[in-house]
């Protein structure tokens, strides 16, 4: 549904219902006399009020509920929440439980990145409308993507029972932890997945990305010894350095009139970008050696930083990282003594940030004296990226104004997809009703 | 329709056989017989029902007009059974169209005269109403069974 309204001196690009993104969104760009006067990423996603839904619930109930914010990255929501509650309760989880949490997250990264790279994003580079068409061109590639995705899903399913909305994450650990044998059973799939992930890196490196560069402010977690995932400090490409509990000291959210969106920004109102490109830019030195070598081999580190279309390469490299790390964890696994550490809910403030596949995900809860949620704030990565996406659309616009309108519109849509926006995630913040244009 | 006075027949019908002897004789005066060719319309839905009828021989169909489906037969009445009970029960309008399916002989009792007799004679009324009630109850039971549409196929699943 590509709308086009060309008036004298004015070009409008409307995509009502961007496809191959999670959830329902639209974009609008209005250019008048060469100047971008409107650049909006809007979302037709009905609000579901999760921050309200969790009020009155126990922390463990919250883990089940917040997973439902997003079907693509439920683990991310469980992770930010569970770390927040454990931080508040000063629960010391066993190292092997902590490792299992990372493994669970690896599974989700693999599943989410494989989905985006193969089924949602790659069709753009190869001129296809979907994965079925892509399979007609290159069935082996799609099957490779599906195998990767399946490997990720299997990790989540072994640890949490099912790939979407897994059930085992509990404050203090897991309701049940796998046996050594159960994890070992993942190995054949993961071995194959590592080959697939490396092949993915080489495959996407052959793609031709539109010529577009800009300087971006990146934000991600950074940990002294690990690639950012569950733990670390919040850092930015221009020097920010915060504890994961302190996101609110540097960032604010505000509601913009054309959107249900609560857009996040830093004090200086300069947009910032989260996600694979940010992590690769800020923490490439922590990549698993196999992933690091793959990144070096394709030589796209710079392109990832400058050109948003190359986020596909960042995801491919992170696929290698997640599979390689998962293999290491499976091999070194020693089941914990206890699946769950005992824990008593208490009053206070619980907050934490982890790295969802799409970037930094911040949770903040106030708990009452019975340990029930009194208030909540959940800041998903897509809401934080929205301003950066709109700014990039503005920068990108001049390069497509001479293209035929539908080509230009398609380019814009592609640009949006390269950020892997997760609109369902953004439940509580996104729902832009596009103002009626004449 | 061919009409005639056939006074001997009422006693031989299911309806007549149940009447007390004295009353039977009195009703006999209001009885006449009628014959219909196959396809003849005996009564039309909505019309005034002038006679209570007893099928002596043949078969009549009770039909309702269903605009989407045309005329639908909902019941056939066989020899020995009654038609036109609305001749006795207000508002005396026929609830269906009655057609002779095959050549049919009816015994007809004049409705107005019958009603007058019934009002005047509790013994007759008791006997007639009882027979009518039984006939109607039978018909109601049958109608309920038909309503169940037992032989139809339930297809509430799309597969």
């Amino acid at each position, binding site marked *: *549904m590509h709308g086009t309204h060309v008036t004298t001196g004015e070009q409008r690009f409307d995509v009502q*219902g961007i*496809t*191959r*993104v999670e*959830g*329902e969104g639209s974009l609008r760009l209005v250019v008048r006399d060469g100047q971008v006067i409107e650049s909006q990423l809007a979302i037709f996603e*009905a*609000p*579901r*009020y999760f*921050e*309200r*839904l969790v*009020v*009155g619930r126990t922390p463990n109930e919250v883990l*089940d*509920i917040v997973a*439902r*914010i*997003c*079907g*693509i990255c439920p683990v991310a929501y469980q992770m930010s929440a569970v770390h927040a509650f454990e931080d508040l309760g000063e629960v010391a989880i066993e190292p092997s439980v902590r490792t299992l949490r990372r493994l669970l997250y690896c599974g989700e990264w693999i599943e989410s990145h494989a*989905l985006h790279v193969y*089924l*949602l994003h790659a069709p753009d580079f190869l001129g296809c*409308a*979907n*994965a*079925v068409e892509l*399979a007609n061109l290159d069935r082996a590639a*799609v*099957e490779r993507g*599906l195998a990767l*995705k*399946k490997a990720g*899903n299997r990790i989540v399913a072994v640890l949490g*029972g099912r790939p*979407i*909305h897994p*059930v*085992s994450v*509990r404050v203090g650990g897991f*309701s*049940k932890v796998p046996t050594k044998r159960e994890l070992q059973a993942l190995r054949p799939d993961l071995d194959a997945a590592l080959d697939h992930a490396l092949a993915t890196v080489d495959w996407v490196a052959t793609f031709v990305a539109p010529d577009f560069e800009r300087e971006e402010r990146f934000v991600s977690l950074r940990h002294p010894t690990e690639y950012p995932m569950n733990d670390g400090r919040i850092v930015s490409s221009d020097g920010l350095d915060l504890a994961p509990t302190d996101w609110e000291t540097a960032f604010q959210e*505000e*509601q913009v*009139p054309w959107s*249900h969106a*609560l857009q996040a920004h830093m004090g200086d109102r300069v947009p910032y970008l989260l996600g694979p490109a940010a992590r690769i830019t800020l923490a490439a030195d922590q990549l698993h050696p196999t992933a690091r070598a793959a990144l070096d081999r394709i030589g796209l580190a710079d392109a990832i930083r400058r050109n948003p279309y190359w986020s596909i390469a960042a995801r491919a490299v992170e696929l290698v990282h997640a599979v390689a790390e998962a293999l290491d964890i499976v091999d070194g696994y020693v089941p914990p003594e206890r*699946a769950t550490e005992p824990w008593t809910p208490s009053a206070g403030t619980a907050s934490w940030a982890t790295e969802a596949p799409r970037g930094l995900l911040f949770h903040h809860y106030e708990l*009452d004296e019975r340990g*029930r949620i*009194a208030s909540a704030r959940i800041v998903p990565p897509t809401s934080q990226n929205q301003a950066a996406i709109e700014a990039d659309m503005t920068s990108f616009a001049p390069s497509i104004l001479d293209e035929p309108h539908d080509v230009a519109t398609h380019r814009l849509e592609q640009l949006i997809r390269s950020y892997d926006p997760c609109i369902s995630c953004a*439940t509580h913040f996104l*729902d832009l*009703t596009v103002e009626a244009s004449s | 329709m061919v009409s005639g006075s056939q006074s001997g027949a009422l006693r031989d019908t299911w309806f007549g056989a149940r009447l007390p002897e004295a009353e039977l004789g009195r009703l006999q005066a209001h009885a006449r017989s009628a014959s219909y060719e196959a396809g003849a319309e005996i009564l039309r839905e909505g019309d005034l029902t002038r006679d209570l009828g007893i099928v002596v021989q043949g078969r009549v169909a009770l039909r309702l007009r269903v605009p989407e489906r045309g005329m639908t037969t909902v019941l056939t009445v066989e020899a020995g059974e009654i038609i036109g009970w609305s001749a006795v029960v207000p508002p005396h309008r026929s609830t269906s169209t009655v057609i002779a399916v095959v050549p049919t002989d009816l015994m007809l009792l004049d409705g107005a005269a019958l009603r007058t007799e019934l009002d005047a004679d509790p013994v007759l009324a008791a006997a007639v109403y009882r027979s009518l009630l039984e006939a109607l109850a039978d018909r109601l039971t049958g109608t309920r069974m038909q309503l169940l549409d037992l032989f139809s196929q339930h*297809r509430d699943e*799309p*597969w």
Partner: protein
Amino acid sequence: MTGAVRATIASRPRLGIMKFASCDGCQLTILDLEDHLLDLLVRFDLVEFAEASSYRSSGPFDIVLVEGSISTPEQAEEIVRIRRETPLLVTIGACATAGGIQALRNWADHDAYRAAVYAHPEYVESLATSTPISDHVAVDAELRGCPIDPGQLLELLTALTVGRRPQLPDESVCLECKRRGTVCVLVTGNGPCLGPVTHTGCGALCPAYARGCYGCFGPREAANAPSLARWFGRDGRSDADTARLFSGFTAYAPPFRSVIDSLGGPPIASHSGEDA
């Protein structure tokens, strides 16, 4: 007989997959049928699946799978339109079949909800309720669950290609627990479990992971939720705590809803976070 949808490579039915208020997880389950995905998709003409394909269609369809609950005025109109466009409408997931977790707001003061999340609630248009699709239009079949089970989804799609009735039993989770050898967590005291009154389909997941079922597939036929609720209350559990057990992803489905009501409502109230 006529009327049966049959999907083959030779005659591909027009398939639409769409969503309302939801997390996308049930649609994602379609893509999670990794091993069968490509073989399945060639048997359908996938004319609408915005999550995974750039082609769009507003109808007509032969089959529509709908995810999500109805929670805005536009959605309430759109589902009526879609129903007109398809002979076979299948709802997928707890949001579409029961209203989802967001249906908890049906007990609450909606304006208070909006104000709690948005500084400018006047910008946000949404219904006061989140309701299942079947509250708005007739539904031909449903896949339960939050999210739906990939096995059940494959069974549905396979049944459509083979031309048979999908095997989607409406029985308790307990049967599956017993078949897979999981010991009853309710009886061993490892937590309250909604399995006995919950619709099967997940493979009895939660008890196998050492926790009670939280009812994400919704009430099964003849779900005797009041009896189970009385049992939960037997060992000193408060009505409010029993109510919270039923106040999950299918809370608004009738037998659970009435139990919640009888126990004083779900933990979330419009005016405060108090639950009794």
